[in-house]
């Protein structure tokens, strides 16, 4: 049961070879673009690596880079094959190469599709990683004198200003953390002592946020201290005031940013995937139609090309069987050796 049978005249074969040559160069470019996008995504993820707890999300750009490089290789060989396809003298040397070529190509093309799906699957993992990373960043905000944590303040401040966000889920996260270091607190002051005594863990918690949470679009100068106290500020109601501080949490802002990036990249990679599939299908058609006229004196006859000789399942087993046999052969040989050792 042949899949995708097509009758090709000589003219059609020539046109197919020419079109395929152009297409394979475009697909090589597409592969390069995929690689570049993978690199770009990796750099963007590394830039904010300090607020991420783990690097699980890096599997997406890594896959993209591998697939991009592989795609460039596959399409380069595709262009060489189609260059030699119309020449019956040069074509036979590709014979032994074709089966592993198709196997690899299908594998990497599926991997391309998987990488796009992966970017959606990893969203949850990214969110968790950011949640933990930001929580730690906010906790260590005050530790500008502890080695290894001295740049957390700067990182968080820059992040909040750049992404126009405040805190993990919202600005209230700052109320639960002591973000002013003890060395800037006057312990002889009554107010400070009261606050520390009233807290179970002895932390100095206030209803205030750092300056980087301030929204420049607010019409009034920023109110960052005593936010929930309406009487502390003239003409101020903290429930109705929405412009004073950034209302979005940094986790939400970062997840949206990265998902937006991965959506855009996914769209480009999908089109490269389609291009790659068409290149592979064309190479297969060209190869089978050229094999049909091989050995004949007049190469300008019509011939039939097909995608798969047998059905999909049978072709799949045909490719996987050698791999399995290799594994089984290894298993059988020790057993045989044991049997031999037993009999001797």
């Amino acid at each position: 049961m042949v899949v995708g049978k097509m009758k090709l005249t000589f003219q059609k074969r020539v046109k197919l070879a020419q079109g395929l040559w152009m297409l394979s160069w475009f697909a090589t470019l597409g592969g390069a673009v995929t690689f570049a996008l993978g690199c770009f995504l990796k750099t963007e993820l590394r830039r904010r690596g300090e607020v991420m707890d783990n690097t699980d999300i890096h599997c997406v750009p890594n896959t993209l880079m591998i697939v991009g490089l592989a795609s460039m290789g596959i399409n380069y060989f595709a262009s060489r094959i189609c260059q030699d396809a119309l020449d019956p003298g040069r074509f036979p040397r590709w014979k032994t190469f074709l089966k592993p070529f198709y196997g690899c190509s299908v594998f990497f093309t599926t991997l391309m599709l998987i990488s796009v799906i992966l970017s959606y699957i990893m969203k949850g993992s990214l969110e968790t990683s950011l949640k933990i990373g930001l929580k730690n960043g906010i906790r260590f905000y005050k530790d500008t004198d502890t080695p290894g944590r001295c740049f957390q303040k700067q990182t968080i401040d820059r992040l909040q200003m750049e992404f126009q966000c405040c805190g993990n889920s919202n600005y209230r996260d700052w109320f639960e953390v002591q973000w002013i270091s003890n060395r800037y607190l006057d312990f002889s002051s009554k107010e400070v002592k009261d606050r520390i005594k009233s807290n179970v863990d002895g932390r100095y918690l206030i209803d205030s946020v750092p300056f980087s949470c301030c929204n420049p679009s607010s019409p009034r100068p920023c109110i960052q201290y005593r936010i929930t106290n309406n009487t502390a500020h003239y003409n101020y109601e903290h429930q109705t005031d929405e412009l004073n501080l950034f209302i979005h949490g940094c986790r939400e802002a970062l997840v949206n940013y990265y998902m937006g990036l991965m959506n855009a990249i996914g769209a480009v990679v999908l089109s490269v995937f389609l291009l790659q599939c068409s290149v592979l299908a064309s190479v297969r058609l060209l190869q089978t139609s050229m094999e049909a006229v091989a050995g004949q004196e007049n190469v300008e006859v019509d011939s039939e090309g097909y995608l798969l000789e047998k059905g999909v399942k049978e072709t799949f087993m045909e490719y996987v069987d050698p791999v399995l046999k290799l594994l089984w052969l290894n298993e059988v040989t020790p057993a045989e050796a044991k049997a031999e050792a037993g009999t001797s």
Partner: protein
Amino acid sequence: MAVLKVTFTKTNRDKLAQVLWVLNWVSVVTGVTLFSLGLFLKVEIVKRRELMSKEIVSVPNMLIFVGLTACAINFLGGKICYDCVDTTKFLRWKLLMLPYIICTFFFTFCILVGALMCYSMRNDLEESLFLGLRDAMRYYKDTDMPGRCYIKRTMDMLQMQFQCCGNEGYRDWFHIQWISNRYLDMTDSGVAERLRSNVEGKYLIDGVPFSCCGLHSPRPCIQHQITNNSAHYNYEYQKEELNLNRRGCRQALLEHYTQIMQSIGLIVLIIWLFEVSVLTGVRYLQTAMENVLRLGDPDSESDGWLLENSIADTARYNFNIIKNLGKCYQVDDDPNIDVPSTSQQAQENVPVKQIPVAQ
């Protein structure tokens, strides 16, 4: 004696024409580059128009104009050079070539002027920024007045992006009222006292907006009561250097624009050198082709030069042309005019014809 004479064989001329054709197309690309550089500079200036008292339009407009003209001129030049390989096709362009070269010469001069303008823009810009920033700081609090409601946001974004504060430094904020009256509790004694103590009734404080806060400071930002050491624990404002941004925004913006313009100026200078070399090549090609036509044999060798006579002679010749341009035709020079001769012999020899009169 020609200036910088070079002898060209037929193959040399053909090669020169081909090379010039390619170079002219490269010049079209550089023209597009010039245009985009001008556009980029214009966008950068328009982005911060609110912070400048007088928008600098001359330099980007000059670059845009020069870029577009470069594209047009070099496109024409490419066409001409392509036709120069064939002497018959060259005849089409023969009359146009000298005016074309003169135009291109003046145009390359414009490119040089454009490049130099980039470097001289600094002084105008500094003054414009000083006045613009001063006004922006004054209108910082006027977020309820139409036309000025976004100045606060612009100023805050500027101070955060460039890590600067005020015009010269953070003390500029001490001299203006940046908190609007509608957020001041006039019934409060502290506020009333401050207003009273000021001559113009302005609410001046030793505080700065939040956007002046330094990112590198190890302690949370101190933006109010900056000069009061006792208001904050373990704080000496003379020693604190990281708390607020130290640089003035005028200095920061000036450096930013100077950097852009120096890069643009350098690129324009390189493009100018390239254009001059292309122009020289076209001039050699033109003179070589004209000499070939004069000699009559299209395959012979011919000379090419920059100027036919020495510089002094050419200058004198052109100067005479310009001098005589204004005057009408000279009576003694023009041979077509019938000048009554003063000698008797001439009068006798010339027969006087009667004009037949109709009866």
